């Protein structure tokens, strides 16, 4: 037992020296030897950058600066925690708000203060066991190999362990993320056959959403909310579904309800701001962005877009002076942020336009165009282009807006979120652009190109297939599907005809593009796997 603790590295994060000492003494008495301490978020992050910790015990409430949740988020986003690391959030209050609110970044465990030595020992021992139990699954997930992770999970599930429910939940999540919807559905139905569980019902709703069965999905999410009024994730998904159904006002209301239950989620507040602004509800937008900007101060999710949103909503609410001040703050708050200048420029377009300063707005627009060109193929490319398109729309430059939107559509023909934003923008602004038809057209083109590519490959006409798909990839460099298919065509060719350095480099080029655009895209795993197999033999 003591050996288990002696080998591990611990980090204690608490602003209160006596608490750190007390916790350190407890850990010592359990056999731990390597114990570091941090007084606040910055120290904690610095320590985690400097070395790998097996266990982080972090107090939620740390006074000014980052709170425990923000430390966790930053550690996960910056990949400072390994798959086998254990992050434990220590709280004084009951933990349910955090459990319900933290959908994306949950710690491995919550501990409610105060706790005894024996309790900590029991909990940590259990967590070490769980991590060891899930080691192979986590390794597969780290390697972005969902199929492998599911295989490992199935082996564990076959043993009917005591954490079966946890395993089934994990399996359903991996299946949903990797688009194995039938398999996910069968897991969830298996769970629901035993007992109604909101997380399982939510999973079924997500599957309906992904199958574009929006009416059923909305019904599922509403049903969950009716039974569990505080299940925040169900509101987020209902709002997403309402957006897809073009019910923008309803989506705004749903998100406002979610924010009332869980007000500390920056992403949700930003989303409310975006939707409310497009819905022409500047007061709601202003409030939401105020919240987001305040919450994001110490967060890894702080971004110039939040300040730009605040400036725009203040301008729309007639508070021009304040709006201008917020826009001017952007470069000061984000001195080294590559996107700061773009967002400052687009925010200024709005502020000046609302103030009737056409010349000022045009100058800012020119600035924004330059910035977009400079940013080129960044990770947020489509968001940048949308931001500029909104500025064009605001100044009534329909042709430019339409050209840019068409490009965004071409790059994201199958990304429901971005397409919905475009349609929302076109419907609510004065912009005269038939986004729905444009989307259908682009989708048709992409599907035709793809099908033709697949047909050529099947007939062994590899040269023609590669030519067609790589041409399409150059036409739509931001389109993940096209880039992946081009990579796949090259892989299939090499699988049959042998590898060449040039073609391998070309595959890497496509993979890197997708990696930059969407590092978590589940399709990357398969392509990487095939590439590895080819280069290893």
């Amino acid at each position, binding site marked *: 037992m003591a050996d288990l603790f002696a080998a591990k590295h611990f980090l204690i994060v608490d602003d209160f020296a006596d608490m750190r000492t007390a916790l350190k003494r407890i850990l010592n008495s359990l056999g731990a030897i390597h114990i570091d301490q941090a007084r606040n978020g910055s120290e904690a992050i610095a320590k985690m950058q400097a070395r790998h910790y097996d266990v982080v015990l972090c107090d939620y409430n740390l006074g000014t600066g980052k709170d425990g949740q923000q430390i966790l988020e930053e550690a996960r986003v910056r990949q400072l925690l390994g798959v086998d690391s254990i992050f434990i959030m220590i709280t*004084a209050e009951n933990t*349910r708000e955090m459990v319900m609110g933290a959908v994306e970044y949950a710690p491995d465990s919550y501990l409610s203060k105060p706790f005894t030595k024996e309790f900590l020992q029991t909990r940590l021992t259990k967590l070490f066991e769980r991590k060891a139990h899930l080691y192979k699954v986590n390794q597969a997930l780290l390697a972005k190999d969902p199929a492998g992770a599911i295989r490992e999970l199935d082996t564990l599930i076959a043993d009917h362990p005591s954490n079966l429910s946890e395993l089934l939940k994990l399996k359903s999540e991996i299946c949903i993320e990797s688009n194995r919807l039938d398999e996910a559905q069968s897991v969830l139905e298996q769970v629901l056959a035993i007992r109604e569980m909101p997380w399982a019902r939510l999973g079924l709703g997500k599957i309906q959403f992904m199958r574009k069965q929006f009416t059923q999905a909305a019904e599922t999410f509403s049903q969950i909310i009716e039974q569990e009024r505080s299940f925040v994730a169900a509101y987020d998904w209902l709002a997403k579904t309402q957006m897809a159904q073009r019910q923008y006002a309803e989506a705004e209301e749903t998100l406002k309800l979610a924010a009332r239950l869980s007000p500390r989620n920056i992403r949700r507040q930003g989303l409310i701001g975006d939707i409310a602004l497009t819905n022409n509800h500047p007061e709601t937008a202003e409030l939401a962005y105020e919240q987001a900007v305040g919450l994001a101060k110490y967060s890894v999710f702080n971004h110039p877009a939040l300040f730009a949103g605040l400036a725009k909503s203040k301008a729309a609410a007639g508070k021009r002076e304040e709006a201008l001040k917020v826009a001017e703050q952007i470069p000061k708050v984000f001195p080294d942020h590559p996107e700061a200048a773009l967002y400052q420029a687009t925010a200024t377009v709005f502020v000046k336009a609302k103030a009737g300063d056409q010349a000022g707005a045009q100058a800012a627009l020119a600035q924004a165009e330059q910035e977009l060109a400079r940013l080129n193929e960044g990770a947020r490319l489509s968001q940048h282009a949308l931001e500029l398109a909104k500025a064009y729309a605001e100044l009534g430059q329909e042709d430019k807006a339409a050209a840019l939107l068409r490009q965004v559509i071409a790059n994201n023909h199958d990304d429901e979120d971005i397409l919905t934003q475009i349609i929302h923008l076109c419907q609510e602004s004065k912009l005269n652009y038939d986004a729905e038809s444009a989307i259908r057209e682009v989708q048709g083109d992409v599907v035709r190109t793809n099908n033709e590519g697949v047909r050529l490959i099947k007939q062994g006409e590899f040269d023609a297939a590669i030519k067609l798909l790589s041409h399409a990839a150059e036409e739509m460099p931001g389109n993940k599907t096209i880039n992946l298919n081009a990579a796949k065509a090259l892989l299939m060719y090499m699988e049959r005809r042998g590898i060449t350095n040039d073609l391998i480099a070309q595959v890497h080029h496509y993979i890197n593009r997708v990696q930059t655009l969407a590092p978590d895209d589940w399709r990357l795993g398969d392509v990487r796997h095939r590439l590895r197999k080819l280069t290893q033999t």
Partner: protein
Amino acid sequence: MDKLDFSTILASSIHDIKNSLGLILTNLEDLLGNPANHIADPRQASLLQHEARRANANLNQLLIFYKLGQDQLCVNITANPLDEFLEEIIAENRSVCQALGLRIDHQCDTELMGFFDIELVRGVLEGAIGNARRYARTQIQLNAELMEGFLVIRVEDDGVGFPPSMLAQTDYRPQTLSSIVGTPGHTQLGLYFAAHLAQLHRQGDKCGSIRLVNGHLLPGGCFELWLP
């Protein structure tokens, strides 16, 4: 401060109080566990530990009552292996029980799974164990089993048992409770808390409840939590 925000005050006060309680408890645990310490009457230190834990359980109750009042409480049902769950609760209580000269253990099928809100049920059981510590002579036992389609979790002791007036009681609302002359120091609010949280557990048309009986496995009082 433009408007008095009670929830913020409550949260930050509780944070401070719990920090203090945490330090008191950790230091007491060290004190009691250290053979080099010579306390004149170790029982005094054990009582301090027992009362500090009770204060903590009461704080948790207070917070949950506050949320109930604000309509902010929601039940987060998960599937929980009972063996592990009871083991954790025992681990949390072992040192204070030992110091009081009490044995605490648990008994349940290792395969037994329960569907409930783990934090709420933990709070209910903490309260029941706090009471049992007061009345037990030598032993406290936690056990769990399935009965009549419910999960029954019990906290038993080998004390004198509940008085007849309490055994007869079926209604635990505060207005009813205040009319009953309780044993001094016996938290009637605790029963209301337990009954209310039990009721928040529903499955189909079934709903959770609590029962008090005497002489189940151990001769003394037995607190039962019935969960659907």
